């Protein structure tokens, strides 16, 4: 098995995989219930559309647009939010 990036294993895409301006549908929040609840209240509900607006100047956190609002998440959180597509 090759471990180079080009020939990757099937990988479930997360918010981290989005390029600026790109949008996708959320599939799952792989986070503790408490955190998932807060994210869902801010609009990160499975089935909703999220787009990646831009990173903060240092590259992290990143700003995502969901349901008409901009919400910033650190990449450690964004990594646990899965999208409805594979890459």
């Amino acid at each position, binding site marked *: 098995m090759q471990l180079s990036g080009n020939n990757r294993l099937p990988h479930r895409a997360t918010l981290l995989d989005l390029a600026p301006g790109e949008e996708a549908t959320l599939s799952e929040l792989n*986070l*503790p219930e*408490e*955190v998932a*609840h*807060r*994210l*869902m*209240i*801010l*609009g990160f*509900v*499975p089935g*909703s559309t999220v787009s990646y*607006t*831009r*990173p*903060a*100047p*240092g*590259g*992290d*956190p990143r*700003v995502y*647009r969901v*349901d*008409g*609002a*901009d*919400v*910033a*998440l*650190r990449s*450690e*959180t964004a990594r646990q939010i899965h999208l409805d597509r594979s890459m």
Partner: protein
Amino acid sequence: MSDCHAGPGTSVSASPAGGGGVVSLKAPALKTVALVGPPNAGKTTLFNRLTGLRQKVANYPGVTVEHHSGRLTSKRGVEVDLIDLPGIYSLEPRSEDECVTRDVLRGDMQGIPRPDAVLLVLDATNLSRHLVVAAPVLGLGLPTLVVLNMADDLAGRGGTLNTAELSQRLGVPVVLVSASKGEGLEPVFEFLDGSLAVPLPAGSPFPILNNLPAGNDVPQCRAWATRLSQGTWKAPAPSLWSRRLDAVVLHPLAGPLIFLMIVVAVFQAIFTGAAPLMEGVEALVTGLGKWIGATLPESPWRDLMTEGVIGGVGGVVVFLPQILLLFLFIGILEDSGYLARAALIADRTMARFGLQGKSFIPLLSAYACAVPAVMATRTIENKRDRIATILIAPFMTCSARLPVYTLVIAAFIPERPLLGPLLGTRAAAMIGLYVLGFAAALFTARALKSSVLRSDGTPFLLELPSYRWPMLRSLGLRLVDRGMVFLKRAGTIILAVSIGLWILAHLPLTDGKSPQIRDSVAGSIGRTVEPLIEPLGFNWKVGIGLITSLAAREVIVGTLGTIYGIESEEDTQGLGAALQKDLTPGGAVALLVFFAFAMQCMSTVAVVKRETGGWKWPILQFSYMTGLAYVCAFAANRIVTAWLS
């Protein structure tokens, strides 16, 4: 912070009032009305618009959440008490804000009557997400008026709203207003008046209300909100200039640069901009002292007034302009929406010290005063991050340290240019003290976060509000609020300490005569602690100041003013000159270092106790800061003395 003190009933139950249908609320008039809504919906703007100056701030018993209430009199002469509740996204008791809001709405909050009605304030430009909070609020069964705010913004960005249809679907009246412009508010007044016919939401014939989703089921609430907004609401286009501004403000290079420029500009304005105003206040205070001295006949009362009251309180009131300016800038940054961006930019740097972007806002406010800063930490959901921020906030150089720094620096550091006309030795010393406090804060944060306060799972989530023009009205109200708090402190704590000290400095009387201050009660207290502080280079007079300044840092200036005022008959040499005689350069530097680190502020201790829900953290914090101050002041005295000899 603390657990929700759950009231007797724990489930949100629909009102049993059967019958349904429209109940008109004519007299008796409403008495208490609560303003509820998500953060950034403009609740406070509406509250200010409705109540103006007739409002007051207090804290809910046992918790830290500030409680704004105000009164208004309607056109029909009905008196209404408005309560501005904290911004919430749900009534699930997951944060302190949510606990407070839920308790007040259910009548479980001690000392606050259950509201007779609710104004549910939502942002019309964000309707589908804001409607989520409507489900649990309507489920309470209180007469409710849904106030959709930001009408101007909605129209400006091409959004539309059918209030009649939405009202029909919700079963409660809905109005579209612009709180910032004061437009569309008549129905709100009518509602408060009791002259707007209001159906009781619970048990109403509208099927959608009988199918309210459970408040804790977020996906269901969202689906409900989406169904409601479909066909009644056309979402506005994303705010173009918010987007354009963000492209600049969050630009990889320009962003941090703008951030730094704003921080520097704020400090520059506070120091140079406030100077003429402070001189003005000082002239007033001095003039008042002279006038009293000349007008009143010679008596102990006159001396108490001039030496005790004017010397003590007057010396502190001088700093009012500086404090107001700092709060003005923080208010502008907050209301414009920039502060959220600043938190975003600061997050990465703060993360290096184990903190997070949301700690930035309280730490910035701590430059004004640690008390509001400690209260501002409640936006940090992560408990450990919040406690860490509370513990380091008093290291930031608050405005109460300014009088002490200014006095000692002016007396001991000769003014010489360092960087041409840009920076002099005195300004450099001042900046050095700011850096010293900041470094101590970061060092402490690092130590705490890698030991007892290692982070738990709560992540950093930050909603970026759209940019808005700050409203003069709400800025003004906030300044009045903060100014009153400061003056109240000067008029109570500092006045009491000044008078008490003046009396102690004149006792015991022998043959009706006051003793030398050295032999007075105050003097002997000072001489008792002298052996303890002598290694730092302080004498008994500074010792008295250290004790009185336990109440508040700036009190030491008043105290020294009182002591030297009593001591020197001619009183022409000024406080700085008097200090020069009494302190060695080593002792002076040690005094500065001591004040940079020590937690000389009872208000902060009290607010930390309240915020953290016990004595553990404030005692730890006080001991740590005082210990650090002592050790560093000792070292500073030794180093400077050795260096100069």
